[in-house]
């Protein structure tokens, strides 16, 4: 946090008045923050604690109030069958869950990688001076402005196996030999989801990177030009290091978003185990399968996984949210 550069108007005036004024301001600040903090505690803090609590109970959808504490049973328990055989049960040995975890991680890593690369390309284009730049910027804002559900529906129409325009285009251009059921086939379902997500969120990435690019002083490039540095080398030696802070922040924002993905997959590829993510599986257990406690355990584990990944990323990438290493 850029706490040091914060404005403290009274710092310049002297002595007693200063400290009195400061105290008055700090007291006022507490009252100003209180409503927001209460609101956040009620809508975020309390529900989070309750969700974690439910994961240690036997709660079901119709019996939430009567939930009883059962410890770690939803996560892991050993079951002795009548035959004497021992079975391991619970979330930690649930193949469906780990499939969803793998899907989520694969989706997040792939989508964010492509978004970063393509976002960089779009940002470099937008950073150049050319006629019609305004049109390009307006155009790339359109995918961002379209609601996710709507883009999922638009794309599932375009990806339709019988009447989809993408199959038609692929056949006409000779890229496909036959029509493909993009969203229904296990092998292509994830690709379909990735394409839609990358289409929708690359603009966001591009705009964040562009803001970083615009902070790079132009005369560095002029100097490099005079020294005869090749444009590709310029990119890797000048541009990339200088936009790195902006890029790292953009990537973590997108990564956190990708790890909790729900709506796109719920609409585009419903009931496909090839794309089912942690969020989709957790909601399914909570409300469709009437395994409220088990679903809560999933959401708790999801929260933990995301928290750990975020901490590792911030720590490894030395991410700073104040605009970086300047």
């Amino acid at each position, binding site marked *: *946090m*850029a706490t040091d550069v914060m*404005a*403290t*108007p009274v710092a310049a005036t002297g002595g007693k008045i200063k400290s009195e004024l400061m105290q*008055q*301001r*700090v007291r006022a*600040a*507490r009252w*100003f*923050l209180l409503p*927001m903090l209460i*609101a*956040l505690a*009620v*809508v*975020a803090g309390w*529900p989070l604690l*309750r*969700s974690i609590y439910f994961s240690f109970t036997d709660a079901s959808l119709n019996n*939430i109030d009567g939930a009883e504490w059962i410890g770690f049973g939803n996560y892991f328990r050993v079951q002795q069958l009548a035959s004497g055989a021992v079975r391991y049960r619970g979330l930690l040995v649930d193949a469906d869950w780990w499939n969803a975890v793998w899907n989520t991680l694969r989706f997040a890593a792939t989508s964010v990688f492509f978004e970063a690369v393509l976002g960089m*390309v779009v940002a470099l*284009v937008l950073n*150049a001076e*050319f006629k019609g730049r305004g049109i*390009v910027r*307006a155009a790339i*804002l*359109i995918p961002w*402005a*379209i*609601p996710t559900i709507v*883009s999922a529906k*638009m*794309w599932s*129409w375009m990806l339709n196996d019988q009447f989809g*325009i993408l199959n038609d285009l692929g056949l006409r251009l000779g890229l496909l030999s036959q029509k493909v059921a993009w969203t229904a086939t296990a092998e292509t379902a994830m690709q379909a989801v990735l394409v839609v997500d990358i289409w929708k969120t690359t*603009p966001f990435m591009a*705009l*964040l990177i562009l*803001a*970083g690019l615009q902070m790079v002083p132009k005369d560095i490039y002029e100097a490099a030009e005079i020294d005869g540095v090749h444009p590709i080398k310029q990119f890797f030696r000048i541009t990339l290091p200088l936009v790195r*802070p902006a890029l790292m*922040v*953009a990537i973590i924002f997108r990564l956190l*978003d990708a*790890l*909790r993905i729900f709506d796109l997959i*719920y609409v585009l590829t419903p009931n496909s185990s090839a794309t089912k993510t*942690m*969020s989709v599986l*957790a*909601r399914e257990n*909570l*409300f469709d399968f009437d395994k409220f406690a088990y679903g809560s355990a999933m*959401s708790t584990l999801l*929260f933990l996984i*995301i928290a750990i990944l975020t901490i590792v990323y911030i720590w490894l990438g030395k991410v700073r949210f104040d*605009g970086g290493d300047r």
Partner: protein
Amino acid sequence: MGATFDLWKITKTTLFYALVVVIVVVSVFPFYYAILTSFKQGTDIFRITYWPVSFSLENYQSVLSQGSFPRNLLNSIFIASVTVILALFLAVTAAFALSRVRFRGRGFLLMVILGVSMFPQIAVLSGLFELIRALGIYNTPWALVFSYTIFTLPFTVWVLTTFMRDLPIEIEEAAIVDGASPWVIITKVFMPLMWPALVTTGLLAFIGAWNEFLFALTFTSSNDTRTVPVAIALLSGGSQYEIPWGIIMAASVIVTVPLVALVLIFQRKIVSGLTAGGVKG
């Protein structure tokens, strides 16, 4: 030498503009195709065309006349507006405290706020469900106004904090010398300067609330209380093979056109608002 150089330059320019065209076409095409489909009638929908061949308002008439879609639109407008107004109301004072007053734990508090705005919503879903049922607002618009606060409030606080932090000290000094209280400083000094920032932040939060799906799907259960994203997601025909694509596309265009218009009108402000949340943080 000069000729080859020119050739290279021409190739470069051509490639660059080709890239520009690809970016624009890829960005715009799905929306264009949705509009195209929405104006097709009957079996025309299943004839793949790249240009408009027929024009009919049938799909729009049926989506607006039958079912609860108009009601869903009103729900979405009401919920998103109330959520944003509430969030801005709570955020202005909080942002003042976080940006203009130095106190212990401020950095930590900002991290918590950022953390909440990046929260996986599913992590609070079961707890929120219990709370919303206990409050007796399940299946009402208030359930969504209540739950949307979880992402609109931290977002507005964060963006307004970065905005207020960049305002010069001098504007406050005169008011402090005159003995104005912090409340007076906010309402009389900051508010008049903050309108642009409030509009931008409000618009971004509005889009977020308008597009939200998970909470809307979970906390409403009847056709009349749903918001548009859920209504569109659940629009279906008689069977799996009778998906009413024309109607879905018409509904999609109806909910998207206002957003695209707003975004294009406020382009510059939105871009600066987005990047304020991300880069300058």
